[in-house]
């Protein structure tokens, strides 16, 4: 791959003093070689980045119209909806943007799970990604509190109360989080401050995520390392255009929801102003938290329920050391594929259970699904690494396409995967 070149004297002048153009070129330009077999499943990383930018832009504009006070917050949101120029559009983009951000990121995560993108040497890349997921959850939770509707208030109360399960210090921690004796004005104020701050921290962690990614480059659907330049193509224009096409498709779906069913993923109770003295009959978190909420509720002990809920994320942190199979891609792992599908089904079942009252059959289903979730990560994956017989891997990324014609030109390049160009 060629390095960065230009004829512009202005760019040359800047480049000599601060090599910013070659940096961009190396990061996502023609000097960044990517495996040539990346499928559309590899679109969701850049999509997540773009969604983050959409959220930050609409969020800053909303913050200019919003008032973080218990007496004014609900009305200021209604004012955005009715009086502010295109305020309804701004809010519907931001509100549904949160859901789409989670859709994109969950697909991104399940892609990583299927193709073994968490395996060596990308463990740290994966763990930084889990940190981003946690930050996203905190940000989304606090953002949902800001409109100060019934679901905002009671969601905030239930979730902050999770920390009261901490032995000994629980009460003091919760009082400290609230800045009072219940969710009230101090809580709303600090949630607004943190909701504004956290996205920028996410941006910083995304930079780390991309930094770690570029150390070894993207994984690919075959899960084998590129053997040389013949297995790679420049990121620009090949993947910039592929990402742009995917973005177009994504924006069509996003716009369809914003303009036709903007409240489909919301909850009508949140259009009732918060009332600290009356709990809605049925409290449900936003859909993207439902599987975790189901895990919390399926355990009859308060502390253990909270531990299990956080544990469901914690297992993702240690996933690179739970799955010991040397084969990355699920394409070559016949048993793993079956369990992967079961895990996806399990996640959906947990989501459905999370939306239902914790009674009767739902409680039983929730317990089985919770048990299966942990069984998958803590027992099945480690055992598969030992007992599964993977299918033979192709010799190179080019081989399955070119039927053996893709062997490296230079004999010296056969032994080692190509270093970054």
């Amino acid at each position, binding site marked *: 791959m060629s390095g960065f070149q230009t004829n512009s004297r202005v760019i040359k002048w800047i480049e000599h003093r601060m090599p910013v153009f070659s940096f961009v070129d190396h990061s996502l330009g023609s000097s960044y070689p990517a495996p040539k077999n990346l499928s559309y499943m590899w679109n969701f990383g850049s999509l997540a980045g773009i969604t983050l930018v959409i959220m930050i832009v609409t969020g800053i504009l909303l913050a200019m119209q919003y008032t973080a006070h218990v007496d004014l917050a609900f009305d200021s949101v209604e004012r955005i909806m009715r009086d502010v120029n295109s305020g309804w559009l701004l809010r519907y983009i931001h509100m549904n943007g949160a859901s789409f951000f989670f859709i994109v990121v969950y697909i991104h995560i399940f892609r990583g799970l299927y193709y073994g993108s968490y395996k060596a040497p990308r463990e740290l890349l994966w763990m930084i990604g889990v940190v981003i997921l946690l930050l996203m959850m905190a940000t989304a939770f606090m953002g949902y509190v800001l409109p100060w509707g019934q679901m905002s208030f009671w969601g905030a109360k239930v979730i902050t109360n999770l920390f009261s399960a901490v032995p000994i210090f629980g009460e003091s921690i919760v009082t400290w989080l609230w800045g009072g*004796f219940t969710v009230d004005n101090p809580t709303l104020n600090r949630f607004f401050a943190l909701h504004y701050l956290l996205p920028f921290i996410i941006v910083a962690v995304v930079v780390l995520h991309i930094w770690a990614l570029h150390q070894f480059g993207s994984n690919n659907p075959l899960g084998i390392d590129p053997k040389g330049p013949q297995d790679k193509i420049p990121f620009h224009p090949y993947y910039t255009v592929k990402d742009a096409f995917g973005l177009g498709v994504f924006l069509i779906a996003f716009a369809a929801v914003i303009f036709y069913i903007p409240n489909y993923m919301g909850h009508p109770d949140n259009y009732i102003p918060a009332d600290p*003295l009356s709990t809605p009959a049925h409290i449900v978190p936003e859909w993207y938290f439902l599987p975790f909420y189901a895990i919390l509720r399926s355990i009859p002990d308060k502390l253990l329920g909270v531990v299990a809920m956080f544990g469901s994320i914690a297992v993702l942190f240690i996933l690179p050391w739970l799955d010991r199979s040397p084969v990355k891609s699920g394409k070559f792992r016949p048993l793993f594929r079956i369990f992967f599908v079961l895990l996806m089904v399990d996640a959906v079942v947990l989501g459905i259970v999370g939306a239902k009252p914790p009674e009767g059959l739902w409680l039983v289903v929730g317990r089985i699904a919770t048990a299966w979730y942990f069984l998958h990560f803590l027992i099945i994956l480690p055992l598969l690494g030992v007992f599964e017989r993977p299918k033979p891997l192709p010799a190179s990324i080019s081989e399955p396409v070119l039927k053996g014609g893709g062997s490296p030109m230079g004999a010296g390049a056969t032994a080692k995967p190509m270093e970054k160009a």
Partner: protein
Amino acid sequence: MADTATPAQAGSGETRRDFLYLAAVGMGAVGTACVAWPLINTMNPSAEVLALASTEVDLSPIEVGQRVTVTWRGNPVFIDHRTSDQIQQAEAVDVAELRDPQADDARVVNPEWLVVIGVCTHLGCVPLGQKAGQDRGEFGGWFCPCHGSHYDTSGRIRKGPAPLNLPVPPYEFTGDTSIVIG
């Protein structure tokens, strides 16, 4: 400065540097912690929040069998003017069988009046049972709709995920029919 480099002092000089290094870093850490605490403490309840900490209630209009809700420190407080049946029920329970063992007389000043904070000890929802026709759960007290905790006529947890009884706020009778909570 030349004398610091003599071989005879080299060994002791290194220990001295180690000590100075540790002392300087330790001092820095203590100083940072001292500044961090007031910053963290700004997030604790402020003086004006704490100032709202007492509520006076006139009990005279509350009839036997009636329940009312008042607000104390932003939280609902349930006041139940219990019937003699409800008092008997609460006193008849075998304390040893309870999840959070507490006798009824340890939870009331005057058995006719039960005063508890109406916040479920599981995750903070307000239990049902204050208004006529609401579900009072299997033990005739309160029922939390969020995750299904049942409380008895003494506000004690009997069934469901909540770990503790509904807490009794600090209160005292200022007359036969008035109390001050907090």
